[in-house]
């Protein structure tokens, strides 16, 4: 995972900078520049520490051949608070069982997060003013925002608490305006700054991008990181690892067909019943087309849709992902699970010995996303 995030960070810095990987033809230029997640505003911006992705949540599944990366979440990955809440629930309810194993600690995540964010301080001080920027109480992840702000001892701010003056970001405190050095932002790029992105955004801070571009404040993760977790770019991550690190990838991708490629499109159309098709810009498990679960008529209709707009889709084989015993309505039943470990990167990369483990709750379902009714489990990484 450390190898993977190192390559992804280098890729993002490169595509918004000299774009060597594009000029060397490793990734077709139109795949990057034509991607909706490509942020032209980030072109030429100096990114603190050359680390655009400080917090990454990589989704892993286990298949017969071993672990595979399902996707990388490089924008505002969520779920870490549930990992810790699940652990606390386990420790409360299974005290003796827990004591018998030498389980690695996940609760130090807050300390690691603080250490990581501190390294992004543009002034290089030991005590930067760090805030967590949330869309507010109506956001589904507000609990997590509050939890993390508490863990790292940062103020939980909304856009209306911040303002930009003379190229610096300030927050309104009861002692006056306090300069902000590092913003752990939990709102999407589109809403960050109404002067740069969506003009109707009331969640963001007017002028924030101006302050960021001047290097007066650090945004973690940086805007524009979505370019590297777009599903059509995902297929190139092994190439990125070879290109930037001159290493072979340790963790492999799931085999992926890019439908903008005519051969891949034909293969997909011929084998739709064995594949899952995903929209490239989608997330949260929305828009998935699982061929095996559809009728012939539905597959035919979808094939037509794919022919009309192939650039917008990728296809992957339907995986036999590993299952774990789950307590379902007073019975123990198998359910599919995936793992989301969180990788923190500042001057160095850090991980906790655990992951957010998601469950597909409906019987036979492969969709683990929380937004689609997925559940969660505590995951133990046991010391040798």
């Amino acid at each position, binding site marked *: 995972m450390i190898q993977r995030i190192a390559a992804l960070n280098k890729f993002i810095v490169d595509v918004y900078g000299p774009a060597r990987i594009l000029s060397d033809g490793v990734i077709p230029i139109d795949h990057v520049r034509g991607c909706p997640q490509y942020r032209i505003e980030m072109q030429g911006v100096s990114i603190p520490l050359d680390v655009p992705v400080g917090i990454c949540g990589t989704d892993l599944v286990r298949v017969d051949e071993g672990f595979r990366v399902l996707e990388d979440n490089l924008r505002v990955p969520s779920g870490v608070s549930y990992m810790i809440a699940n652990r606390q629930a386990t420790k409360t309810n299974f005290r003796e069982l827990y004591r018998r194993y030498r389980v690695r600690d996940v609760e130090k995540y807050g300390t690691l997060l603080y250490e990581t964010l501190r390294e992004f301080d543009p002034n290089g001080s030991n005590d930067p003013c760090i805030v967590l920027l949330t869309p507010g*109480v109506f956001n589904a992840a507000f609990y997590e925002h*509050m939890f993390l*702000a*508490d863990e790292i001892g940062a*103020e*939980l*701010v*909304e856009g*209306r*608490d911040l*303002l930009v*003056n003379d190229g610096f970001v*300030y*927050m*309104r*405190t*009861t*002692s*006056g*305006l*306090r*300069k902000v050095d590092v913003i752990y932002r939990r709102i999407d790029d589109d809403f960050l700054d109404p002067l740069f992105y969506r003009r109707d955004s009331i969640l963001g801070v007017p002028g924030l991008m101006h302050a960021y571009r001047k290097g007066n404040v650090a945004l973690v993760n940086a805007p524009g990181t979505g370019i590297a977790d777009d599903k059509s770019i995902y297929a190139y991550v092994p190439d990125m690892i070879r290109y930037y690190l001159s290493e072979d990838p340790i963790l492999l991708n799931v085999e992926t067909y890019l439908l903008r490629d005519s051969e891949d499109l034909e293969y997909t159309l011929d084998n739709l019943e064995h594949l899952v098709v995903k929209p490239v810009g989608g997330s949260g498990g929305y828009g998935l087309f699982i061929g095996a679960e559809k009728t012939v008529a539905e597959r035919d209709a979808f094939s037509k849709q794919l022919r009309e707009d192939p650039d917008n889709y990728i296809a992957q084989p339907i995986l036999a992902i590993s299952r774990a015993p789950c307590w379902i309505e007073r019975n123990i039943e198998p359910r599919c699970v995936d793992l989301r470990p969180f990788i923190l990167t500042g001057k160095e990369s850090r991980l906790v010995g655990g992951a957010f483990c998601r469950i597909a709750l409906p019987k036979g379902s492969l969709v683990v996303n929380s937004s689609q009714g997925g559940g969660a489990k505590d995951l133990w990484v046991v010391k040798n």
Partner: protein
Amino acid sequence: MLARSAHGLYWIGRYLKRVEHTSRLMELQMNALVDCTWDQIHFGWLRLFRHLKTSPHNEELVNWEEHGDSWGLTDSFALADELSFVMQNESSILSCFTMGRENARQMRHCISSEMWICLNKAYFEIRDLSIEDIWTRDPMQFYANRVQDVNTFMGVCAATLYRDERWEFLQIGRLIEHAQLMLALMSFQNKSSDSDEFEDLEHYDWWSLLHCFQADEAYQHYFGAKIQPEHVMNMLVADQLLPNSIDFSLNQIADRLSALGEAPSNRHGAMANRFIGRLVALIRFEWPDAENKTRMLTLAESLALKLHDHIATAWFNYEVDDSVRF
């Protein structure tokens, strides 16, 4: 601390004080329904609605004045509902509890987990109740329990909240709400005893207030069993030792503001300090000799409103150009 968080804490204090205050008076009114005269019941309702500066949403109840009618026993069910569970009424107990909790939900990282649990528990106890649920059982106990809920919350708060600005803003909110409500209540009570409309106002209505604000024992100690409206009024307004008196609250506010120190907006911070100074002086030094008490209470009410405005502008919604930077 973040200005918005301070603002939220200030309003938690205000909303919960309003819950407590309304519950106290509602308990009193439920008591009155049992054995008081028709006039007293009407007066009790009028006192509640007028000093809370609200009116029922039920049109039939609102139009009573036009018809020369009075609020009596038969209206009491709907009136109690209005001040207990009607969410459109911003002064109702449920509405204030909900708003207090909503502020706390957004400020959970600023309050102790014990405070949150306590508030949440109290909220869920009443959230799904209706006036029917309490009316046929024990309405007095219901209101007494709400007072207890708020007292418990404040106790947990005193035991667990770090004594920094969070504490100060929560307390300032609670104290300002108390001062404003008491000023409005005393003002209404005083006007009523001077007016012809309530010439039959009996000692019950004064005694009940003493009881409501835990001043009955102290009153008996100093003045004996005979109820003299002037003494009751002086006690609830200007007694320096009575925790529920206006004077006591104002002095506490002055102390809390002084503990906060300089505000981001110096101008409004200074105004807030001047207004609290004027209020304290008004109640402590001018009140005892004032001939027109009603006028003095009205003046104090308007000063208290302005005090709130200056606090809000000095610490929460200050102009950027005015403020200190660091």
